[in-house]
């Protein structure tokens, strides 16, 4: 009996706490439904060239202090785990078309640009983020 009283007491305290919090910051409780055509999960997704040929996989996203994505880490190429390398590309070089299952994420970079890009190694050091030579030329 004593124990259930204790549990009730704790419950009451928790409820009071959450009510107090709700008073301070009103939380939006509406649930929004986002269909997969409008927003997609990108981690581990295939990355293609503009023509739709697979060139790598998106393995990480670098964001700034505001949570805005700055660069994507893409694992390129390789055969049976040999010769693959990770490159951080500027977020602006990626184009997302969730509606197109063939090229959900396309990278606007030529094979030569990818080849010349420095490898992304240690996330704790300054990342060498690759920007397409002329971002304006590649944007539609």
């Amino acid at each position, binding site marked *: 009996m004593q124990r259930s009283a204790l549990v009730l007491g704790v419950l009451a305290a928790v409820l009071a706490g959450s009510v107090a919090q709700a008073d301070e910051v009103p939380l939006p409780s509406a649930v929004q439904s986002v269909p997969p055509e409008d927003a997609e999960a990108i981690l581990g997704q295939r990355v293609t060239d503009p023509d739709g040929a697979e060139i790598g996989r998106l393995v990480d996203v670098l964001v700034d202090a505001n949570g805005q994505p700055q660069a994507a880490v893409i694992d390129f190429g390789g055969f*049976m785990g040999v*010769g693959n390398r990770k490159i951080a590309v500027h977020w602006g070089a990626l184009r997302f078309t969730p509606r197109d299952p063939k090229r959900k994420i396309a990278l606007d970079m030529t094979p030569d640009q990818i080849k010349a890009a420095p490898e992304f190694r240690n996330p704790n050091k300054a990342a060498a983020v690759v920007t397409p030579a002329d971002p304006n030329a590649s944007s539609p």
Partner: protein
Amino acid sequence: MQRIRFPRVGANRALDLVNFFVADVQTGFGPFVAVYLTTHKWTQVEIGFALTLGTMTSLVGQLPAGALVDSMRNKRAAAAGALIGIIAAALLLALQPTQLPVLLAQMLHGFSSCVITPAIAAISLRMAGYAALGERLGRNARFSSIGNGLAAAVMGATGAYFSSQFVFFLTAALCVPALLALWSIGPGPHAREQTTCDVMDLSGLKRLLVDRRLLIFAICVMLFHLSNAAMLPLAGAAVTMRAGHLANIIIAACIVVPQAVVALFSPWVGRAAERIGRKKLLLLGWGALPLRGLLLAVLPGSWLLIAGQAVSGISAAVFGVLLPLLAADLTVGTSHFNLCMGILGLAMYLGAAVSTTMSGGVADAAGMDAAFFMLAGVGLVGFLVVWLAMPETRPTAIEISPATPG
């Protein structure tokens, strides 16, 4: 009489198939784990941890696994148990890509790999006897490399069309023909003299470790992999930096061509080991390694790197045949063959583990060519140790005659 003679011919063929299918199974496991976990949104750190756990298990498991196989009277059962472990690991990965099952699968696969390599060598030893072991190991190496090369070519070429999950189901499925081939080797006189009384025979380990020849050879094995293990990844990196859209085809050739060289060359190595002795072949294999490092450092472009890689087929054939052969030489008359394989396996894993880190550091600091030169230098040290310190180990006819199966 015929019932005894026919299965003997069949048993050799069946052992060929065991080597082929086990190589198939092992080829798929490593490279696809990383890709598979990436598609399941594992972070790079988590993937690195899972892979390292698998490697660490293989490293730590070498000696216990060797001692375990030594203590099992039925070596076929040891190999079958390892295959069942690999099936379980593959199915765990395919069906449950979450933290605990994946880590469990990595450990299970790591330990099973430690068991299956010495177990197959032990079955070969009992089947062929000491006198004909070289030839039998040459066949083993040939069929392993055919399995490796074929599986790498097929899986690499079609991997993009299948999900990585499918690869693990395929891996589990390929264990079934491996088990069938293992079963059709037949009971044979596999184990009797090769079984220890205790599961963990520490006195046996002590006896092995006072053998100077084993210590020298373990150092040679360690230096071999310290030089060898990082060369292919480094060559792959060189190809991706130099070649454009054909890079993956060149890398595929860098993987498959050496396997073809091993397939062609290893039966000769096995026969020659009985004829001209072990030492000359060790010099050939360990000498090809610095040559390969030099070629990879100086050859221009990306297509020519395939030629450098082809040289690795020579050292791989020698290594693949002579490691179990020397383990047998050094344990004639004892029942510690698998423990000896474990000691050499441990030396191999230690060398390989340091190799990639070391060459990566040198490549970052001084460039890729410097890393190739450094690896070639380590290979040269290995060659010198073989040349100056390693004695001939081919047993005399008197030593091996009682152990030949009747």
